[in-house]
C-alpha cells in the first residue's frame, strides 16, 4: 500500500497509466480507521494485479476537494488518471470494496 501526499498524488495517480485504487481517509474519521485493516488485506491479496494507494486528506484538504472528495471514507478507482468509480461513506463496506476491486483486476 503506497502512502500518498500532496507532493506525489499527481505522479502516482493522475499521471499513472492503468488502474489505481485510492483509499481517501482522514485523522478524525473513525469509519475510515475501521475499514483500514480490510483495505490492507485487499492490498495484500490483490496487490500484484492492482496498484493500491491511500491519501490522508487531513493533510491534503485542497487536493481532496479538487478530486470532489468532501466526505469520508471514499474508495476510488482511477484509470489513466481519471476517476472511473468510487464508493462513498456508507456505501463503503468490506464486501462492496472487494467487489469493486474485482471489477478492475
Amino acid at each position, binding site marked *: 500500500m503506497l502512502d500518498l501526499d500532496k507532493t506525489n498524488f499527481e505522479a502516482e495517480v493522475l499521471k499513472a497509466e492503468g488502474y489505481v485504487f485510492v483509499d481517501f481517509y482522514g485523522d478524525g474519521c473513525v469509519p475510515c*480507521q475501521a475499514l483500514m485493516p480490510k483495505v490492507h488485506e485487499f492490498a495484500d491479496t490483490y496487490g500484484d494485479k492492482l496498484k493500491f494507494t491511500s491519501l490522508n486528506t487531513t493533510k491534503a484538504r485542497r487536493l481532496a476537494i479538487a478530486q*470532489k472528495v468532501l*466526505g469520508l471514507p471514499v474508495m476510488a478507482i482511477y484509470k489513466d488518471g481519471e476517476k472511473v468509480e468510487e464508493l462513498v*461513506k456508507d456505501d463503503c*463496506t468490506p464486501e462492496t470494496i472487494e467487489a469493486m476491486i474485482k471489477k478492475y483486476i
Partner: protein
Amino acid sequence: MSKIYDVIVLGAGPAGLAAGLYAGRSRLSVLIIEKGQDGGQIAITDEIENYPGQIVEGESGPSLIARMTEQAAKFGAERVSDTIKEVCLEGDIKVLKSEKAEYQGKNVIIATGAHARPIGCKGEAEYTGKGVSYCATCDANFFEDFEVYVVGGGDSAVEEAMYLTKFARKVTIIHRRNELRAAKSIQEKAFKNPKIDFMWDSVVEEVGGDDILQWMKVKNVKTGEVTTVEADEDDGMFGVFGFIGTIPNSKPFEGIIDMDERGYIKTDDDMHTNIPGVYAAGDVRIKSLRQVVTAAADGAIAAVQVERSMSDYF
C-alpha cells in the same frame, strides 16, 4: 459444527458492549459481532457531556468506547467482525448467518443501534459525500473556513454545530420549528457562540451543484416562501450536515420480530422481544430516550435476563 455460545450480542455500541461485559462477568460464553467500528453513532460523536462520570478533559466518543471495548474483552467477551444477513431465531439454538460464516447461540441480544436519518430533500443521495454529511468528526476538516449548515434542533444537531464552528467560518442551524429541542445548557452555549446563526421554521427542500454542493432551496414552513442559498463566490461550495434523528438497524429482523411501523423493536421492561431467548437493547428498540447511558443500561438488563433464564434451566 461451530461453537454454541450462551449468548450472541449483535452490535458493539454502548448497549452491546455493556451486555458483553455483564454476560462475561456472569461467566457466560459470549460472542459480540460488529460489522463496522465499535461504538456505532458514538464513535462519530466528538463530545459526550452527559454520560455519568464522563468529565475527563479531552475525552470524546471514541475514547469512551475504547474503554468499554477493553472492559468487555477483559471479562472474556469474544469478538468477530462480520455482517449478519440472515437469522433463524425460533427454537432453542439461534442461528445467525453472514456471507462467510454461521454463528450459533442459545440467546441473542440485538444491539444493532440506529443510523442517521436522511434530511429528506431532493438531491440528497447524489450529494452525500459531496457536501452533504451526517458525520461532523469525519468531514468537518473539508469545510475549514467555509460556510456550513446544520439541519436539526436536538442535542446532536446543536452539539455538532458547535464542533463545526472549530472549522467552519460560519455555521447556520436550520430548524423546522422556532425553538430548539436541545438541552438548555447546550442551547445557552450555542446562542453565545458568535459563529452560529439560525434559520427558524425552515426545511431544506433540495440540494444541488456541479458535482459538489453549491446551492440549496430552503422553505419557510410558516410563510411557504422558498429561498435559494448559494455558495459564496470565492468558496464555490458549502456543507450541509443532517442531525434529525435516526433509523433503526433492524432490517434482518423484519417480519420475524415485532416492531413498530418505523422499525424499532418492541420489548418489555426487561428487554424481551416476542421471541423467547431474543432480546433487544439500545437505540434499536422502542424507548423514550436514546442516549449512551440508557443504551448501556439496556445491555446490562438484557445480559442479566439471559443469565437468569439459563440458571432456571440448569
